[in-house]
């Protein structure tokens, strides 16, 4: 085995050991790992957000309403909508909206307008 190959193998073995032990190696390897959802800044119903995204028709428009929510919650929901409700288009102008996504007291609902 060449010196390079031995060095690479040693590095991989060391990585395996570090990943198995508690400490920075394990943290860098992100063990335990995250799921496929974004790390929201505030607790949000991640599964429901995806569900609403799958319920919305592709070629449509929606208005997001977040009555009583903090700006951070509203901002996170706006981004989550742009991520999971696409290709539906988010609108500011209510007249253009065919659907309404409402977030109230932790619950997300979808209504046809």
């Amino acid at each position, binding site marked *: 085995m060449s010196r390079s190959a031995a060095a690479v193998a040693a590095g991989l073995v060391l990585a395996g050991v570090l990943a198995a032990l508690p400490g920075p190696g394990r943290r860098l390897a992100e063990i335990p790992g995250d799921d496929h959802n974004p790390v929201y800044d505030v607790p949000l119903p991640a599964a429901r957000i995806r569900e609403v995204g799958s319920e919305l028709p592709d070629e449509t428009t929606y208005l997001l309403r977040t009555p009583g929510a903090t700006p951070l919650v509203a901002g996170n929901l706006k*981004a989550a909508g742009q991520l999971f409700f696409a290709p539906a288009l988010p609108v500011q102008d209510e007249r253009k909206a065919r659907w309404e996504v409402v977030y109230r007291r932790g619950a997300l609902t979808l209504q046809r307008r």
Partner: protein
Amino acid sequence: MGLVAGVVALNAVFVAVGYAVLLAVLPRGAAASYAGVALLTGAATTGVGVFIAAILGLHVGVRSFVVVAVLLAGVGLVATRVLGRTQEPPPSARLETAGAVALSAVVCVLALALVGGFRSSPWLDDSWGIWLPKGLALSAHGLDARLFAPNGTYVSFGVPDYPLWWSTVGALGVRFAGDVDARVLDAELAILLVAFAGAVVRLQWGRVRPWVLLWTLALVVASPELLRQAQSGGADVPLGIFFACCALGAALWLGCGDRVALVVCAACGAGAIATKTEGAPEVALLFVVAFAAGAAVVPRRLPALAAAAVLAFASGVPWWLWRAAHDIPSRVPLRDALDPSYLAGRTGRLGDSAASLAGHLVDPTEWLLLVPLLLIACVAGWVLTRRALWLVPAAAVVVGLAFLAWAYWAAREDLDYLLGTSAYRTVTPLALLAGVLLAPIVELLLRLHEPVPVDDS
């Protein structure tokens, strides 16, 4: 395909395109060792190509990706047929024990970072709140002004002046993975990081003694802030990688006449320009420094470097035209940034900005000692030889820092907020620049005491 298979497949295409683009200048007999160089070249050129295709009206997706990949590969193959393949052998060197130890350390850190990249969801909300949604919109609607230009009817995206290479690559990752999986971004960042390390080693292998090269690389990849940002999902790491490789490519072209490095310089310059809005001025300043240095030492190599610069900036023109056509303002308007009376009224921001940015760069808990070591090595070389050329790498970092300080000075947002939320990552390109230039400077310092031919052109 799933996350792992999808991201791997996407990057396999990047590698293939990169090899095709590089084929004419690729030394024979060591193609596998250029995989990192090929991946960065392919990711930069293909991502920029698909982004331009989106500006021209195509949706970002597998179809536009295949079209662009085939076109780029075709250009590379035609260039090889016309120019022929180089007969140059690849620079080679023998790995010493000290280098082998450093290589083990680098591999260990990168292996952990790679695993972590596929297992982590980005911690930076810009990544899933701006970059990836923009990519998905490019995929669903193309570059639709209803979403990408502020208006009162539709909810448009934030920072509309930012170019969209990272969004494009993120959207391709999602398409290949088959799910809106936020981990796609961190997985791609991890792969780019590994490719970056591979490219830095390959481009300098045989020119810098391996233990110097690998220990300085170990400092780079073990930098806590790089590893932290590699799991942020943000665009600062790819910008930093492209910027640093553009600089390294320019340096190796000017110093050694390395044609692979010249292609990397052009491709990564284009990638940096298409990744974030500050990429274009940073790359422009980099070329200014490179031209100034090259004019003093190797003027015969400047025309080719100029061609690389023109290619890189030409790739940015379609986006700038689209922005102008849709009245997308810059986040830091040039009018403000060049207005002495405007700047004079807010001079307090300059010192705070410079101090904050420099503080991040020299903080050993963020970037270890990359920047201080580069500055010390440059000054040592200058003191020992009295040749101003030694100060060029330091000048590149200082000029970049001055540009960033100027941008924060001119920006309209609250300075504390702006610095607190972005200064730690806007310095990433400069830290990586220092990291990749440290090895050749240390090598040249060592050669001062062991007279050997330096110019291997």
